């Protein structure tokens, strides 16, 4: 059952009078509880698709449906209870002048949900942060800790869909591992559906069931995880992406 359906999506930006098509005629569908990846290099349009789903990009053609219903413009309150997003840069996605407590309780305040005190404490525990961090400011936390707060914030409204825009690319390798593990655990526990963007094929392979390779705004090839792992891609671009990524891996057979 498809939870997210994107059909022939085109997103056009006006830059200095010229029209730039960041996304051209892309279609995809994500099933309930699936983890779907979007991979590509810069300019591929992968992050733009996420923003288009959120209503933050100028869609000029195509439809987006969540749970069978076309999304209203503007998206509205109900949308924010269904879909939330984790942004790429942990240094930019938390308000620098708000304490963590305020950042986490704000979604509840906006929707008039009670019990924010207890919910904030539980949210911190769920993402593995000590509750003593509650009244810290973002600059008093490390990158990995901030990203955990961003994840906690995204889950405050208990959405069923989580959009992840390169959630670990700004983090150190060891911290990335922890955050990816956290995301997987939360997905298991809460039955979430993930739509995840990354430039890193290894991360996508670890986290996602299916992946769409994109280039210059177009969809190039969709691969299942098994196809990706066994290098069964049919297009040249997907293969070159795979080679460039795999090349950096220390293959187990090398040099030992």
């Amino acid at each position: 059952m498809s939870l997210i359906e994107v059909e022939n999506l085109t997103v056009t930006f006006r830059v200095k009078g010229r029209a730039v098509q960041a996304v051209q005629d892309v279609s995809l569908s994500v099933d309930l509880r699936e983890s779907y990846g979007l991979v590509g290099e810069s300019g591929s349009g992968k992050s733009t698709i996420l923003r288009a789903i959120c209503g933050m990009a100028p869609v000029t053609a195509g439809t987006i449906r969540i749970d069978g219903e076309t999304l209203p413009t503007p998206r509205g309150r109900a949308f924010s209870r269904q879909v939330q997003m984790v942004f790429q840069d942990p240094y930019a996605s938390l308000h620098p002048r708000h304490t963590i407590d305020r950042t986490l309780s704000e979604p509840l305040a906006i929707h008039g949900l009670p019990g924010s005190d207890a919910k904030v404490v539980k949210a911190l525990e769920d993402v593995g942060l000590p509750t003593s961090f509650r009244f810290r400011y973002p600059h008093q936390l490390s990158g990995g800790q901030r990203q955990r707060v961003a994840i906690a914030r995204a889950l405050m409204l208990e959405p069923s869909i989580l959009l992840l825009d390169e959630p670990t690319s700004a983090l150190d390798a060891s911290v990335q591992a922890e955050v990816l593990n956290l995301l997987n655990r939360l997905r298991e526990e809460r039955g979430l559906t993930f739509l995840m963007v990354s430039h890193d094929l290894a991360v996508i392979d670890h986290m996602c069931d299916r992946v769409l390779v994109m280039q210059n705004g177009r969809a190039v090839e969709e691969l299942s995880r098994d196809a990706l792992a066994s290098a069964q891609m049919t297009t040249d671009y997907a293969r070159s992406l795979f080679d460039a990524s795999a090349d950096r891996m220390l293959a187990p057979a090398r040099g030992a």
Partner: protein
Amino acid sequence: MTDAKPLLQVENLRVTFETETGPVKAVRGVSFSLGRERLGIVGESGSGKTMTGRAVLRLIRPPGRVEADSMIFDGQDLMAASDREMRALRGQRIGMVMQDPKYSLNPVMNVGDQLTEGLRQRDRIGRVEARAKAIAALEAVHIRDPERVMDAFPHELSGGMGQRVMIAMMLIPEPDLLIADEPTSALDVTVQAEVLSILDNLVRDRGMGLIFISHDLRLVSRFCDRVLVMYKGQVVEEIAAGDLLAAKHPYTQGLLNCLPRIGGARGPLPGLDRSGDWAKDATA
């Protein structure tokens, strides 16, 4: 081809920043020597790897303080060198390539002017000859139409192109040592390979020493001869690149193992076990 005398020798390098909440020790006692080879310095953020590179070039300003028992480049004492002597060294004999050409190239000068600036002011070479050298340098980094690039501004270039211009700029004066600080981190994966191979060939052909600073352990191991692994300002392991899989230090092993692999297991990634003594010592 090992020189008896190393190109760069650093003993007990320390970099400290004075802040209003007390001194922050970015680099705590780093020692290494470098011949005409490729040395990788790997670490996460806060490990002090960038500060080490900058300290060699004496690019750290107050409130930062650089101290070392000795820091000798090709027989010249870098700690005792005056500002004028350092200026003569920088660019001429020691070059630095930084991460993002958007920020390291001057946005208001075109590429040609930036490439020839050093030649014309420092070496007093005439305009025509300087331009010829600049074009030769651009061709050496595999830029296909160097004439067009000479007249372009940095924001008109793609990331990979900008980084190649940066490398060309640093290699014109034919330095003996190149310090590359995350030179490919801001580039797309497919472009990274290309830029690295250019760097690879140039370093090899000119017999330069290279310090390659990165957070990417696997990349560095593929590209360098030796690797220094840093954590919180100290070197925790020094190892030949080929022996990386047999690394002994728990931090290095942790770094190697915690990355996801294509086709790897789906279970939780092994995290870094920071309970060892080496992590505790780090606050001294």
